């Protein structure tokens, strides 16, 4: 297990740890899982819902077409197919996709999420069934209440029902791990597992001639500023790079040389700063940010 993060002084964490959860693999490495935000899960759900509704509408049109084309001879078989498909879509769409090795529905894949058990065990069918069967009270009960029974129940009944349903719907907002009731019952959670491409190492670029950053100039920032600089360089936004370059030049009291581009300067500075900080890291000291003078 890496102790670098824990070596940082308490109080000011080096990472936004609020959403990071520990998962120690049997090899003893902490994978630092990142929990999905409620907003991301909502997006994923709406993608899935759109797919389900789309398939249902398509199927309805198809079965109507089939009935018309056969002169209403085959209504029976089309009805059966429709009924079964609607039932399986509603109940087993999520289960079937979560059973695959990716552990995610198309909507979750699109957002880069997956389902996993909270204790790191393999995700079994029982857990998937439990978490999805609970959708009955999280989604279908409130919906049927809103659209069907709510009208019959009168105002106070409707109000009481709405509050009761709201407990289930807003459950994820009231716990630390953003669990919905299905996750709570099944012992699962939803985490980030995006496919990430290996990006170019910024230290591998050609260095512009005549751009030398001295040790003293590199010695003003820490890891936090380095990662900001990395982000700026990867985003390649001209205006931001110009502003950041100006800030750094002012900080190290260096004027812009003839024919020197902001990008080249930032790349050179990034390399110098990273070399400096990684050198210190190898000797056991991680300079967190510019205030960390030790």
């Amino acid at each position, binding site marked *: 297990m890496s102790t670098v993060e824990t070596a940082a002084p308490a109080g000011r964490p080096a990472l936004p740890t609020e959403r990071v959860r520990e998962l120690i693999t049997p090899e003893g490495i902490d994978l630092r899982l990142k929990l999905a935000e409620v907003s991301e899960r909502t997006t994923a759900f709406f993608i899935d819902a759109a797919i389900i509704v789309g398939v249902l509408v398509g199927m309805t049109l198809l079965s109507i077409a089939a009935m018309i084309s056969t002169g209403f001879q085959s209504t029976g078989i089309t009805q*059966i197919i429709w009924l079964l498909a609607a039932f399986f879509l509603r109940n087993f769409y999520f289960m079937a996709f979560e059973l695959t090795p990716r552990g995610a529905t198309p909507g979750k894949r699109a957002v880069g999420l997956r389902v996993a058990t909270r204790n790191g065990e393999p995700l079994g069918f029982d857990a998937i069934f439990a978490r999805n069967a609970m959708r009955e009270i999280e989604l279908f009960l409130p919906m049927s209440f809103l659209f069907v029974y709510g009208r019959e129940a009168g105002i106070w009944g409707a109000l009481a029902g709405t509050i009761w349903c709201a407990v289930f719907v807003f459950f994820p907002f009231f716990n630390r791990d953003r669990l919905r009731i299905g996750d709570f019952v*099944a012992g699962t959670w939803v985490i*980030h*597992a995006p*496919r990430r*491409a290996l990006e170019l190492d910024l230290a591998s670029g050609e260095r512009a001639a005549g751009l030398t950053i001295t040790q003293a100039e590199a010695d003003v920032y820490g890891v936090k500023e380095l990662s900001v600089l990395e982000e700026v360089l990867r985003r390649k936004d001209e205006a931001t790079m110009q502003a950041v370059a100006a800030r750094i030049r002012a900080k190290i009291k260096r004027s812009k040389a003839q024919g020197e581009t902001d990008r080249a300067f930032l790349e050179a500075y990034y390399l110098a700063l990273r070399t400096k900080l*990684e050198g210190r890291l190898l000797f056991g000291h991680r300079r967190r940010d510019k205030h960390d003078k030790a």
Partner: protein
Amino acid sequence: MQELTLKSHRFRKERETEWRRLEDLLARAERSSAAALSDDEIIALPVLYRSALSSLSVARAISLDQALIAYLESLCTRAYFFVYGTRTTFAKRIAAFFRRDWPRAAQDLWLETLIAVAVMALGAAVAYMLVMRDSTWFYSFVSPGLAGGRGPAAATEELRSTLFSDEESGLSIFATFLFTHNAQIALFAFALGFAFCLPAAFLVLTNGMMLGAFVALFASRGLGIEFGGWLFIHGTTELFAIALAGAAGFRLGWTLAFPGQRSRVDAMSAAGRKAAIVMTGVVIMLGVAGALEGVGRQVLTDTGLRYAIGAFALLFWLLYLYLPRMEESDEHG
């Protein structure tokens, strides 16, 4: 000469091909299944995974390249879930479910099942007595849509014809409808159990009341035996399934209220998974009941045969689920 001194850069250059190979294997395995990989690749994958983990650990210690660490974290997480994911095939999981998981889970819920049966019987008894005394009570227990013309106002001959009618047009449509409708209700009963058992108990109770009201209606016209056959052929399977669904719901609600020795979160996930196994079985049972009701009942109009099939089905479920069996090794499936 800067590049030579930047150790993290050299580290990345040395290991990069391995990471890319792992990424490629994972992408292929995730797209279809582990079967998409050759034997050599299957053997290589855990090795590459461990090497990527060690890279991650080194990178966290020596590299300040955020993108690289993020890449390795995502790669290792994906590989972890693949390497330590479920290793059995789908067919084996299904076999294990029928052979071991389902009966074991049902046996574990025996007390809840008994309670659910008792609640259902209570509902049936109350409704039976009320309808026997005053037939207008029937309408309080059965919604008009479900009664479908069968009510105290109907003539005895009409009632008799509903039991033996063979003019039901699409038998299989009817069966399908019954299955999806009942399965939805069962799933609902299970999920409702979460709210401290009460809504699930209510659902089971109303089911029993409906049953009692119908029995009373037909019995008061001297059609009790025939109605019994009509009901028995699928009812043993269906009502048993609904009792099991209620039991699964009770387990959830009870555990939420009284988690026992373990923390509430742990107890809930154990209860939820066990109940989910039972519920999977319930959906299967309701499929069988739908077939018996939609097809079997319409084809077989002999009351004795109907009783025989219903009794056989009940016996089968009881023996299958509760017959003690040898304890098998608990392989993970």
